[in-house]
Every structure is written in C-alpha cells, then in structure tokens.
C-alpha cells in the first residue's frame, strides 16, 4: 500500500515557517486557493514533516506509533512511504473477516449476520454478534420492481460455513 507524502522538498524552503506553509497548502490540494489554513492544517503539516524527516533518517518514529506497526519503508526516489499490513476497511480487499478477532464464538441467543456484498456491508464484522431479541423479521420475497419478483432462498455463501456448530443437548 502506498501513502503519498505531501511534504515538499525541504531544501527549497528558506525557513521552517515557509516549509510548514507549503506542506499545509499542498496537503489541501485543489481546495487551498479558497480555503484559509486553520490551526489544524498547520498541526497536520508539522506532523507530516516530522515523520518525513524521521523516515529519511531511517528512524520510524516512536515505537508505539501506528506507522511502525505497519513496517514502513521509505522510498527516497519516489518520496513515498510503503507500508505492509492488513487493511481493516477496504472495498478492494477479499478477506474472510474484517473483525477484530480471527475466530468468534457466537454467544447464546445471538446471531452472526453478514451482508452478501462482503467488502461493502455494515454487519457483524463491524458490530459483533446481534441479540435475537433485536430480530425484526425475515425477508422472504422481493415484490418490487415487478421484474424482480422472486422468493428469497436461504443459503450460505461459499466459504462462510461456521467452523463448528453447537450440537443441541438432548
């Protein structure tokens, strides 16, 4: 994954103030002409300059910073920071579970629900198991538009079978 760095070349600026100005303006991009720079914009610019300098020096910031956890590499020619890691929210990703735990046991009286469009769905991968008492109903038929009249058949998507099912104790 590539994050582009908007820090302008440090050599061209005459003072730190100018460097910050340029960085903040380039971070805003096209909106900079109509937009007065706010305190937050300057703070963000300072932060990105600091990280840029640290990366160039080979130090990747404090060990608790989230950037370090992604194993960053600084490419001096393209001035890009490359990171590795597992994306949590991305429409292009095709992983089984974007949930915080790899394996989940669904508690008693709860359901695990997922949308069919996996990358693009707000479902149990975001908010966890859902209590049965919140269940409102079951979608059984599509009635509109008329060319999509059909009975909705219950089916599990491939690869989404539960890994172990609880056997009912007699």
């Amino acid at each position, binding site marked *: 994954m590539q994050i582009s760095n908007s820090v302008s070349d440090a050599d061209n600026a005459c003072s730190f103030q100018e460097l910050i100005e340029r960085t903040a303006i380039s971070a805003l991009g096209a909106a900079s002409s109509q937009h007065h720079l706010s305190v937050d914009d300057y703070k963000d610019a300072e932060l990105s300059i600091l990280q840029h300098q640290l990366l160039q020096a080979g130090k990747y910031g404090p060990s608790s910073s989230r950037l370090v956890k992604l194993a960053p590499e600084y490419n001096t020619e393209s001035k890009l920071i490359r990171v590795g890691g597992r994306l949590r929210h991305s429409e292009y990703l095709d992983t089984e579970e974007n949930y915080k735990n790899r394996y989940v046991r669904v508690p008693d*009286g709860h359901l695990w629900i997922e949308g069919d469009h996996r990358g693009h769905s707000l479902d149990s991968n975001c908010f966890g198991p859902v*209590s049965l008492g919140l269940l409102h109903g079951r979608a059984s038929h599509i009635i509109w538009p008329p060319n999509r009249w059909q009975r909705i058949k219950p089916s599990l998507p491939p690869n989404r079978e539960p890994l172990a099912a609880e056997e009912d104790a007699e």
Partner: protein
Amino acid sequence: MFRHMLGKTLGLFGYTIQYGCIAHCAFEYIGEFVVCSGPSMEPTIVNHDVVFSERMSRHLFKIEKGDIVIAKSPFDPQMNICKRVIGLEGDKICTSSPSDLFKTHTYVPMGHVWLEGDNLRNSTDSRNYGPIPYALIRGRVCWKLWPLHSFGTMSETPMKHIIKAQRDSDSD
C-alpha cells in the same frame, strides 16, 4: 334460522377481531402489566409484584438515567428482565466494586444502555453481560399495582448516590 346464527357468529367474530386489534395496539404503544419475579430489584420491587410499564417513553427515546425498565434478555429473546438504567450511551461507568483497590471504567457504546439491579449482590445485569442495545428495552416501569400497601409510583432509588455520581462525572 341458520342464516341468523351465521350472521351472529360472524358479528361476534368481527367484534373479537376489532377488540383484539385495539388491545394489541394498547399493549404495544401505551403500556402493559408485568408480574415481576426474582430478587434482583429488592427492595424497590420484590418477588410477585405487579407493575405497570408504559411504552411511549421507549418509542419516543425518552428513557433516562435512573428509570426502571423492562427489557428483553440479551441471551433469551423470550425472557424479560427488569432493571434500572444506570448509564446511557456515551456515559462512563465504574465497573469495579467499591471494595476493589483499582477502579476500572468502561464507556457505554452508541445505541446501548447500562442496566443494574437495585439488589447489587444478587443481580445479573450489565456488570455480567455488558451493555445491552437500546432496542431491547420494552418499556419503563412507572407504577406498582400490587401489593396494595405499596401502590403508587416507584420510590426513589436506593442507588441514589450512584446515579448522582454518574451525573457528576458526566458534567466533568
């Protein structure tokens, strides 16, 4: 003769459906009678008390801290629980007991409430299973109907100091 009987039966059937619908709407939107069992809300509500819980404040999202609510159990949708609301969404709740050395806190997530019974020693509530979604709440208990000697609105919570502490920590 036969048509007369048929007419009367259909009339009776019609009235039953009408009154059934009115009763259903009343129980769904106005209020219902609840028989409480269990020791978790003593001394406010004891075993076999009959209370009246009103539904409007739940539909209008007017449930507040300190209200006693009837909610569906998060682990068994056919069972109901009766507890007091200690915290609403966004509140900071102290989860450690007063005897603990280190105090732990949690924040109630969006769309959830934190429930605790008045009888803290003998109650399974949010301290055991966490905050419950607001949509599981069925109604707010407003009157106690039986036993007759304690008829009337619910007495002030014995947990007044906890509710007050919650209000103070909110205003921080």
